[in-house]
Structures are given as C-alpha cells and as structure tokens.
C-alpha cells in the first residue's frame, strides 16, 4: 500500500480507531459510560479535523481505484461525522434515565458511520455493498436498542427483515450489472455502458439489474412504495436513534445513489429517469398525506422524513432528466447534496427537542405532550419552532434554501421533470399543516398541570446550538455550502 492509499482511507481508518477506543475505554472503566461517550464525541470531532486536513490532498485513490477520496467524499464524510457528533450529544439525556448503555450505543453508532463513510468514497460495486452492510447492520442493533421494549423490538425486527431482504435484492442487482459489464469497478461499468449501451434499448439482463438495484435502494431511502418499515422502526426506536435513522442511513443511501447510479449507471440514465420521477412524486405526496393524519410527533416526523426523501429525489430526477454535460445535470446533484446537508441539521434538531421532552421514561411523543411548550420551556419551544419552520421550507432557513435548490434544478431540467417542481411546492404547503400543528400545540394551548421538566444538559445544549446555527446560517448565507456542493458535484461528473 502506497502513501497515497493511506491518505485516501485515513478518515475511515481513524473512525474505526475511535470506535475501538470507545470499546476499550468501556472495558477498562465499565461504570463511566459518560467517559466513553465523551471519547466518541471528541474522537468524531478529531476525525472531522483529519478529514478537513486531507481534503486538500483530494483526489486520491486507494486499493487499485476501488476507494476514492475526492471532494464528494470529503463533503459526505464531514456530513456523516456531524450526524454522529450531534447524535452522540443528544443521546445521553434520553438513554441514561432509561438505563440504556451509553458506551455500546456510542461504539455501535460509530461503526455505522464508518460504513457510511466507506460508502461515500466507494468506487467498486463490492466496496459499495460492503459499506452499505456495514452501515445498516449496526442500525438494526440501534433500532432494537431498548430491547425490553415491545415496540422497539417489533420495529427492529421489521427493520431487520425488510432491510436484509432489500440488501439481497440490491446484491442481486449488482450481480446482473457485473454479469453484463464484466467488471465491478464503477469506472469500468460506466465505461462499458458508455460504449455499449448508451442510447440503445436496454439489454434484458441489464434492465433486470437496474430494476433490482432501484428496488433495493428505494427500500434503503424509504421511498414510496417501499417505505412500510419506516414508521414502525422509527416510532419504536429510542428517540435519538430515530433521529439518527431518519438522517444517517438516508443520506448514506443517497451517497450510494451518487456513487452507483450517477457514477456507474449515469450513461444509461435515460432508462431510469422515469422510475425516479414516479418514485419522487409518490414519495413526496404519500409521505405528506399520511403525515397529515398522525397524532404522534415521532411518527409524524417519520412520515415527513419520507416526504423529504421525495424532495431529494427531485434533485436526482433533475440530474437524470437533464442532458449529459448540461448545467442542470450538475444542479441536480448539488441539489441532492445541499438538501441532504440542510435536512440533516433541521431534522436532527427537531428530534433532539422531542428527545429532550421525553427525558423522563414514560413521557410519550404524543402531540398532547407538546401543549404549552412555548410557555414552559421558551427556548426549546422557539428552537423546535425554528426547526419545524425550516422543515416546512419557509425562509430564511436552511429548509427553504434546500427546497429552492431542488426546485430550481427541476425547472432547469425542464420537460416533465419540471412538473415535479409544482408538485413539490404543493406538498410543501400540505406539510405546513402538520408541522405548524405542532406549533399550534406549543404556543396556542396550555400546558398540562404536571408536565415534567425538559432535559437541559450541556451536551444537549451544545448540540442544539450547532443544529440551530447551521439551520439559520445555511438559510441566510448559503454561498459557502454552494461552493462546496459545486466542487463535490464536479468530482462526480
């Protein structure tokens, strides 16, 4: 392995070191799980610093081109690490009162993140699959982390069964692609498709492969009609885990899409754009319609996260529908990235407040729990209102700018993709109804007599400050993020 190899895989290697370190600390001082969680947080921050430091070295490849560190990898890695840090900051206040072990949680989470980071730079079909599995397996564990809770176990089992089923479907699709192209390298697949298949009717084998891959990925991002596992898994899981599941695996699956569908299958994108448009339309609309009827905030956020998948898919559809080499093509990819970043911070922030509200075991995430929150915890109420307004897409917040980006991409692409823009904004208006309903409860109803106080630990407050700052800064000064997203998209095209 040459020096270049080490640089390319340094972030992934470092996060593994941190994860093992957490386990080690827990073995040595088993009763101090706060320490392990601290090690995990600081370790993840250190890996962020390492990632930022090696960013200037990009692009570097490792293992014969099967892993690449480019601007896209850097952006995605930093995003995944932010997810890890925020989740680690938000989790203790929820897990500790319920007697759930913090050290195991931290280590498992870091392993899941390492899988996501492996995905973000994978340039080989096998590495892609490896990263995917490494990312989702710890996810199943986290979903069932409250193992004595019936709902959590039910959700975890559903998540596991459908998850492994979809992994198998996905793997099957990979096999077809490999069989057709004769290579597992992303660049190789792309080159073969470019020379052989582009512009021609799809060969039957490749068509089946595409169908399987799409189905597998659609399960992972919870696109309608492959979303059935989501609400149960999300509602059953401990709230900080739900926050993680609604963001981490989703963004990681989009990383997979970027590497596989854009990187390898881009030359035949005219053959899969139709499917993406339909998926996007269904996912936005159904996610929102079902979210409208939820009275449990966690479940509502679960369905709304499905809707947000739909908005991100609009970006993908814009890429896929645009002519090769056009500006709209890049805009679509940037849209996926910008939306993912914005969504990460606002959604994690919203879940953090829900988790803080549920510090005492037995407090549900029912919407009634939020009554009078604006009165009894003004700051928490204000922050949740901010995150919800951002999720709705009202300026000047990150959520608005993210929507702006994908809508613009869809308009630039034109044709039938541009109707997705209209559908997206109609959906956003529908989403306002259920997001703002929480605000109604928070500010326009009185608090119940004996409402338990919210968690207010230093970690939680730090995390909320980060999430809120990101939500506002991306909304008001998005130029920095645009520049990064542009560089990342350029690395891919």
């Amino acid at each position, binding site marked *: 392995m040459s020096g270049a190899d080490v640089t390319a895989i340094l972030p992934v290697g470092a996060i593994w070191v941190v994860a093992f370190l957490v386990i080690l600390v827990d073995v040595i001082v088993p009763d101090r799980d706060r320490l392990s969680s601290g090690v995990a947080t600081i370790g993840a921050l250190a890996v962020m610093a390492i990632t930022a430091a090696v960013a200037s070295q990009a692009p570097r490849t490792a293992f014969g081109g099967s892993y690449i560190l480019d601007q896209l990898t850097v952006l995605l890695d930093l995003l995944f690490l932010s997810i890890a840090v925020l989740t680690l900051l938000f989790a203790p206040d929820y897990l500790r009162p319920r007697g759930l072990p913090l050290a195991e949680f931290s280590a498992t989470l870091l392993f899941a993140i390492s899988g996501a980071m492996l995905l973000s730079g994978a340039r080989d079909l096998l590495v892609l699959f490896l990263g995917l599995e490494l990312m989702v397996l710890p996810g199943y564990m986290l979903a069932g982390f409250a193992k004595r809770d019936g709902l959590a176990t039910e959700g975890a089992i559903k998540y596991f069964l459908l998850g492994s089923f979809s992994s198998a479907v996905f793997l099957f699709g990979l096999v077809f692609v490999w069989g057709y192209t004769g290579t597992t390298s992303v660049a190789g697949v792309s080159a073969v498709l470019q020379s052989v298949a582009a512009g021609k009717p799809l060969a039957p084998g490749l068509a089946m492969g595409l169908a399987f891959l799409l189905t597998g990925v659609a399960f992972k991002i919870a696109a309608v009609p492959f979303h059935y596992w989501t609400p149960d898994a999300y509602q059953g899981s401990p709230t900080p885990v739900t926050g993680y599941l609604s963001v981490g695996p989703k963004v990681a699956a989009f990383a997979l899409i970027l590497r596989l569908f854009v990187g390898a299958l881009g030359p035949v994108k005219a053959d899969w754009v139709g499917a993406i448009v339909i998926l996007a339309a269904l996912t936005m609309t159904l996610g929102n319609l079902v979210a409208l009827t939820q009275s449990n905030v966690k479940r509502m956020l679960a369905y709304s996260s499905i809707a947000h998948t739909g908005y991100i898919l609009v970006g993908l559809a814009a890429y896929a529908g645009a002519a090769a080499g056009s500006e709209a093509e890049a805009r679509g990819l940037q849209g996926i990235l910008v939306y993912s970043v914005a969504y990460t911070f606002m959604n994690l922030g919203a879940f953090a407040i829900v988790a803080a509200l549920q510090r005492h075991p037995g407090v549900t995430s029912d919407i009634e729990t939020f009554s009078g929150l604006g009165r009894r915890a003004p700051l928490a109420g204000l922050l949740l209102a901010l995150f919800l307004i951002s999720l709705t897409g009202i300026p*000047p917040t990150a959520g608005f700018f993210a929507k702006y980006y994908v809508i613009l991409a869809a308009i630039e692409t034109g044709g039938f993709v541009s109707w997705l823009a209209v559908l997206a904004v109609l959906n956003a208006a529908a989403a*306002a109804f259920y997001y703002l309903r929480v605000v109604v409860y928070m500010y326009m109803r009185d608090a119940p007599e004996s409402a338990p106080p919210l968690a207010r630990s230093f970690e939680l407050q730090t995390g909320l400050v980060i999430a809120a700052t990101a939500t506002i800064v991306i909304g008001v000064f998005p130029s920095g993020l645009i520049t990064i997203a542009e560089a990342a998209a350029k690395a891919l095209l």
Partner: protein
Amino acid sequence: MLPVCSLTIFTPLVGAILIAFVPRDRPQVARWLAFATTLVTLGWSLVMLAGFATGSGGFQYMEDVAWIPLFGIHYQVGVDGISLILIVLTTLLTAISVLASFRPIQERVKEYMITFLVLEIGMIGVFAALDLFLFYVFWEVVLVPMYLIIGIWGGPNRIYATIKFVLYTLVGSLLMLVGILATAYAYHSATGTWSFSYLDLSGFHFSPEIQTFAFVTFFLAFAIKIPMFPFHTWLPDAHVEAPTAGSVILAGVLLKLGGYGFIRYSLPLFPYAAHTFAPAIIVLSVIAIIYGAVVAVVQPDFKKLVAYSSVSHMGFVTLGIFAFQSQALQGAVLQMVNHGLITGALFLCVGVIYERTHDRRFAVMGGLAGKMPLYATALGFFMLASAGLPGLSGFVGEFLVFLGTFAVAPVVAAISAIVMVLGATYLLYMFQQVAFGDLSDFLQGLGDHLHDMVPIEIAALVPLAALVVVLGVFPAPLLNLIQGPVAGVLDHVSHGVALGILP
C-alpha cells in the same frame, strides 16, 4: 450616505432583540420599547419621504450587495413613489397598532411585541425589495408572525382561522416561488447570466409560455393575498379571530402586499400575459366589488362587515390595476393607501367597542351616540370615509378608478359605480344600528364599563383622521409621488400592445 432603506427595514429587528431581554414581569417596558421602535422606524420612513425627489420614475435610496453570487441574487432594496408611500403607510399603521395593543393585550406582552416587530420587518421588506428572491424571502417572513398573532392572541376560533390563513397564503406563495425560479431561469438561458433583479427582469421580453406560467403563479399568490373573489374566504375568518391590531395590519398592510405585487411584478414582468388575463381579472374584480358589498349588507358582526367591505374595496384596486390606464392605476394606488387608513381606523373602532362589551353583533348595540359621543363621532367619520364621501380620502381613489376605467371599459365602470350605493347602504345601516336610538338593554347592563374613548385610543385614531381629511382635500402631493412610477409601469404594459379591452 446613510442606508436609510435598510435602516427602515431593520430598525424593528433591533427593537425586537432589545425587547427579548426585557424581564417577563415588566410588560410596560416591553410596550413602550416596542412603541419607541415603531416610532423610530416611522421616523426613518419619513426621512426617506422628505428626501425623495418627486417626479422621477426611478428608484431612489438604492442599496445593492451581492448575497448569493452564484445565482446573481442580491440584497437589493430601493423605493419609488409607490413603494415609498406604502412603506410610510406600513410604519404609520404599525406604530398605531402597537399603541392600540397597549390595553387589549395583557398576556405574553413581550412575545406579542417581538412578533409584531418581526412582522413589520417583513412588510417593509416586501415593499423595498428589488430582487425577486429577496422579495420572496420577505413575503414569507410576513407569514409566520401573522400566523402567531392570530393563533395566540386571537378569538375563540383562532386556530381554525390561522391555519386557514397560512395554508391559503402558503399555497399561493410557494407556487409563486416556482414562477420566480422559472422566470429567473428563462432570463438565465436567454442571457447566460443569473439575475433576480427587478431592474433586469422588467425590461426583458419573456416568451409567451413563460409569461403565462409565471403570471398565473404570481397571480395566485397576489390574488389570495389581496384577496380577490373567489380566493377571499380566509379573510373574514382571519379578521374575526385576529386581535384588533392584527386586523388593522391585516387589512391595512397585508392586503396591500397583493396589490403591490400586481403593480410591481405582474404587470412589468409579464405584460403579454397580463393582457391575456386582464378581461378575466376585471370580471373577477367586478364580481368581488358586488359580492363583497352584497354580503356585507347581511353581516350581523362588525368585523365581518368590515372584512367583506374590504373584499369589495380591494376589487376596485384590482379593477384599477388591470384597466391599464393611467388614472385608474393611480386610483388603485390611492385606494390602497386610503383603504389602509380608513379600514385600519374602522377596525380600531371595532376594537374600542369590543374591549368594552366583548361583543361585536349589531343586534345588541344601539344608542351609543348618547353614551359615547366621541366614539360615535369617530365611527361616523370613518364610516362616511369608507362609503366614499367626497372630501374625504376614500372618494379620491375610487373616483380615479372610475374615471380611468370609464375610458377603457365604460360598462364595467358603470356597474362598479352603482355598487357604491350598496356600500353606503351597509355602512349607514350599521351606523344607524350602533349609534342611534335608545341605549340597548345589553349596553345598559354594562354600566360603567361603557365609558367613552380614553386618550390612548384617541391618540391612535387622530393621525388617521387627519390624513383622511388631508388626502381627501389635497391628494396632489400623493399623486405627484406616484405619477412617475405609474407611467413607468404602464409603459412596460403597453409596450407593443394596444389598449382597450372590454366594451
């Protein structure tokens, strides 16, 4: 030079931040701080008015800072005559509304004042923005505070009303976002550069397809806001449930956002589509004028009556705008200002009586003239102004609209003029019910609660009354201000298209 425009926009933000640090148990401090902020804001807008070079059609006090360079998005603000008088109207009405909230708002005073000041930022920003993206941002900033004002400090059915208000507005404005992006992209694909600036886009000849699509999306947003028949159904609910000051701002300023949008964006950017749709919009306007007036006649509730009369009055505004005629358009602008003053004052009057009786039904009122002579005088004065009595400002705007419309569509003008009789009907009937006759049993039962207006209430109404008289007798300064911009707008509209639309 001082960035007066930005100072006007963001002074309320400073005030809001200051109020956030006022202790919760000192509501009086929050009140006065908010009032002082609105006065300073009013001061800045008057500074702009004083230094404004009348007669020029262009924008003044321009500020331009790159914001999101990749998309050519700028923080670009500036005023012409139309936006300037609407900004002054906004700052004036906000100051008066804050003053009028001193007594009625007793709960969560601090939050109320902060919300109100944030609302003011959005409203001034909409009028001052010259970049479509910035305009959209301010347009949406208006939404959330109003949602909270109705939803937290409103009447019994406030949650239904506020959600209806938000959903209606949001559907329109989000579609407008698509329209904005389609417009900007069309400009980009034609010229190769991105721009959301009004100055770039307004002189640009977009293709008929883009114009039609974008015009429809903009139209929905503005028509819901203004509101035009049949998009008006949120308005009566919102008015009935909103607190007094919320109603004043809603009627006084928020409805004007729609009219302003038509004048500033719909006409100059999409003249072709404006011509295509003008006949339909004129028909809708006439329906709104008639319908609003007819429905107002049968309203048992004070606020609903004023709300429906607003629908009718705003019908004149859209009629004046889409007649594409100089006098009519000037009339539309004047009508917006006058409607803001008069309807704002009427809602303040409703607030005065509601605070004493906690009722707004005419059926239980009667004989107020004897018991509250000052109040009855004020109500009568603004009632007559609303009915369009010559010599008061309400008359000038409507008259100009008639005059201008008559030149291009005499039948429409005739129908609308006849409807003015209806306006007199419901207003006079209302006044007769409330003010004359014997003091009703219900009011007698209130005893000493039913006292005449207190100084703070009088202070809120006096500036409005003075302006109604001044602008009614001597509208020339106002007309001078708006003449240039109106000519500019019509110049864009008539570019290559002959006037004359309906018989």
